[in-house]
């Protein structure tokens, strides 16, 4: 689910950065307030572990294929939501910096899609309520069953939310012609399967931890008292909300009316759209002559109305010169490469 | 310098791992702490460092180890861990070396001078700006010792300082230990190394002191060692 830089418009990337940075700021504040910088070594070692653990191939019985885990739910179950979120950020940062998995500018979006939901939604709305609830009764095996239920439900829901966000961010960035609904129809079912596998792996590991060192699981010990009574209701309420969100997404998907979609996405966002997209308007709305033609294409394909492009008939001449110019630039670049020994293996000079 | 007075300790209720233990280590002594796995060597180390609290009194330089004195105690003790990866957690050797002294409030200039002195003394100048994740096991162990020396502790505790080292690096570490003038307490199964570095040995068995005396004497006592699941050092065979 790692998004690449290319899939995001600058405004979307910046918005997601702001959102993730806020969540990170809250997390840091919380951890500091609870005087938990002492958690730092545990966080570091656990995130290093999860980083490595993501590379394990898990054979999925009966399919011949293998699955992987991403670890957001697992981290928040082990470290709590705040420490889990920060750990996830660090994992994603290392992946993007050293392995090109994700991108420097997409980091904000990736943190949101993969860490925020898994850590915060997964922890507060799923893990803690279920673990402190009364599902499956009392005793050790009931606890195990709760871990399995929480892991699977948590992973599926948080991955669905993550996948939906990917679709939303990509579509808002206006880089794909794939209609929003079709994109959703592609992404959501795939991530249903991925979420299920992730949930099973997470459950397996957490049950193992629970059996050997139950004190390591976070948020489980506060089971007694009033919070426990409320929790089942909370679970039901949350599941209802999630169902609504997912259902809403599905119905949007089904609706082929771009106006309705547009309204649903931006109309009620309180001017958020124009603010968010202000940058694009400035950058892209330059060639007014092209706007008419662009509009006709966009009605069918895209839902970003102010997207113009420099390619109308009147500009045909410039387009040709653009192509020729591009070719010349490419030639120049290749020349630089060869002159500079770009493709040659350099002698290694280390300090 | 180091004193245990009737120390008892249990991890779980009813399962005492140290029974009424008492010993004294004088300033400048080098003491080897030997015993089979689970005898209680690590527990003794942790009690000294205040990582665990037991019954009885643990004294360092006349100060009792307790919550209020931890800062004072730990500034005097250097602990070399068995796993250097856990000790060298900063990006570079230099950053690891300045970590302790700066935390104890020394100025950067003083610390930098110390770091250079220690590295020169151990012939490790080349390691200064190397990455901890890029250096070999032997270099890491030497780096860990340098890290502790930069704190200028009055006493040094070591847990298996020669484990997982090749003969060359093992010898290097042994020579380094021999040259340290501080009070030393070394826990190890490497009895040849203990013989090389310590004048006195304390043998622990089942949470009690089974023997305490000159290293040569204890390490040549075949029956005593074998009764405690150890064997004679190669040099004594």
């Amino acid at each position, binding site marked *: 689910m790692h998004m690449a830089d290319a899939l995001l418009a600058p405004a979307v990337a910046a918005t997601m950065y702001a959102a993730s940075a806020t969540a990170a700021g809250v997390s840091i504040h919380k951890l500091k307030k609870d005087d938990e910088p002492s958690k730092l070594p545990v966080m570091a070692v656990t995130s290093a572990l999860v980083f490595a653990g993501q590379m394990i191939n898990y054979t999925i019985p009966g399919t011949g294929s293998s699955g992987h885990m991403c670890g957001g739910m697992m981290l928040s179950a082990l470290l709590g939501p705040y420490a889990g979120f920060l750990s996830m950020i660090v994992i994603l940062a290392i992946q993007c910096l050293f392995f090109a998995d994700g991108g420097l500018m997409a980091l904000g979006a990736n943190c949101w899609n993969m860490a925020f939901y898994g850590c915060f939604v997964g922890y507060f709305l799923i893990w803690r309520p279920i673990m402190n609830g009364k599902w499956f009764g009392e005793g050790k095996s009931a606890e195990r069953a709760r871990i399995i239920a929480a892991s699977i439900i948590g992973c599926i829901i948080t991955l669905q939310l993550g996948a939906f966000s990917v679709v939303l961010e990509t579509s808002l960035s206006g880089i794909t012609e794939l209609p929003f609904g079709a994109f959703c129809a592609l992404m959501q079912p795939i991530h249903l399967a991925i979420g299920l596998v992730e949930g099973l792996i997470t459950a397996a590991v957490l049950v193992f931890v629970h059996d050997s*060192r139950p004190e390591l699981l976070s948020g489980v010990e506060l089971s007694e008292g009033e919070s426990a009574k409320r929790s089942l209701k909370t679970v039901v309420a949350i599941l209802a909300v999630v169902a609504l969100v997912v259902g809403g997404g599905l119905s949007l998907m089904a609706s082929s009316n771009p106006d309705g979609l547009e309204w649903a996405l931006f109309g009620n966002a309180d001017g958020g759209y124009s603010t968010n997209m202000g940058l694009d308007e400035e950058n892209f709305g330059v060639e007014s002559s092209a706007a008419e033609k662009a509009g006709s294409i966009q009605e069918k394909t895209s839902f970003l109305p102010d997207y113009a492009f420099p390619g109308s008939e009147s500009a045909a001449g410039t387009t040709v010169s653009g192509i020729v110019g591009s070719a010349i630039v490419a030639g120049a670049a290749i020349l630089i490469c060869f002159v500079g020994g770009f493709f040659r293996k350099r002698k290694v000079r280390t300090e | 310098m180091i004193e245990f007075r009737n120390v008892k300790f249990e991890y779980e209720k009813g399962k005492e791992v140290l029974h009424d233990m008492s010993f004294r280590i004088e300033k400048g002594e080098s003491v080897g702490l030997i015993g089979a796995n689970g005898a209680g060597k690590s527990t003794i180390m942790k009690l000294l460092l205040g990582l665990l609290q037991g019954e009885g009194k643990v004294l360092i330089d006349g100060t009792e180890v307790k919550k209020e004195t931890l800062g004072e105690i730990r500034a005097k003790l250097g602990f070399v861990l068995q796993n250097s990866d856990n000790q060298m957690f900063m990006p570079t050797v230099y950053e690891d070396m300045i970590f302790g002294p700066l935390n104890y409030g020394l100025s950067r200039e003083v610390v930098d001078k110390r770091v250079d002195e220690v590295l020169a003394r151990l012939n490790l100048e080349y390691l200064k700006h190397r990455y901890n994740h890029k250096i070999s096991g032997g270099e890491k162990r030497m780096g860990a010792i340098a890290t502790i020396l930069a704190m200028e502790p009055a006493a040094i505790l070591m847990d298996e300082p020669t484990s997982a080292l090749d003969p060359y690096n093992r010898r290097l570490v042994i020579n380094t230990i021999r040259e340290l003038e501080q009070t030393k307490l070394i826990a190890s199964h490497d009895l040849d190394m203990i013989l090389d570095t310590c004048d006195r040995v304390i043998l622990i068995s089942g949470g009690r002191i089974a023997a305490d005396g000159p290293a040569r004497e204890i390490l040549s006592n075949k029956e005593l060692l074998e009764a405690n699941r150890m064997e004679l050092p190669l040099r004594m065979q």
Partner: protein
Amino acid sequence: MKKGIYRMNKMQKALAELSEMDELAARRSPVHTLHPAAKLLTTIVYILVTLSFDKYDLSGIVPMVLWPVLMFTISGVNVRTCFYKLRIVLPLVMAVGLFNPFFDKEIMVSIGGIGVSGGVISMITLMLKGVFCLMASFLLMATTKIDSLCAALRKLHVPAMLVSLLQLTYRYVGVMTEELAVMTEAYHLRAPGQKGIHISAWGSFLGQLLLRSMDRAQELFSSMMLRGYHEHFHYADIDRFRARDALFMAGCILFFVLLRYGNIAQLIGGLVVY
């Protein structure tokens, strides 16, 4: 280690990739010695400018290749290593971009009678964005050591806790990956023919290591406490931000703005065509 005879598992490959980046960053060149904050900010601006190009603005985006090419050349970093990493970025970008030609069939340009649809153009533009952004961030990491980058992040007021966590995690990524690599190898030696971890070991495989890691974390924390840790990490100082760093930044950004607002490709092309 002969190819074909000894197949590295995923973790070993990752370790090799990490150490390759470390080695690249330890080299020397005019780019390596630039202030990390200058490089970081310039890279971010480059990526943002690249992303801001319109999806049909193929001729506008092509000249953006000049900056990474120039930087690769000056820094002496081999581009092959960079393109090896494309295997991760490109499929993802392609998966999204490949749909464009099917949905957007309006002919935008015709070259020699063959019509090129908007979808094809937007697909190529998207791919170029992917490649350019990767080149830029690869360059950053290939010419900047991780601790210099962290120092830059601290200078840019990224919270100390996050930066320390990044640095500490990076320190242990190698250690943990190596442990898992060994475990994976041990597993497969006893389970020949199995592609992955069998479901019966799903929990215990990572779980065992997790428990051990918790002990490791405890020991690590002890070792920090014993050396007087209380909340702050002290790092080596990095070089000051000098005039040449500012000059580099200003120059590059000016260059990007020029590429963004003046269509260089069209200008050059115009000289030839008309």
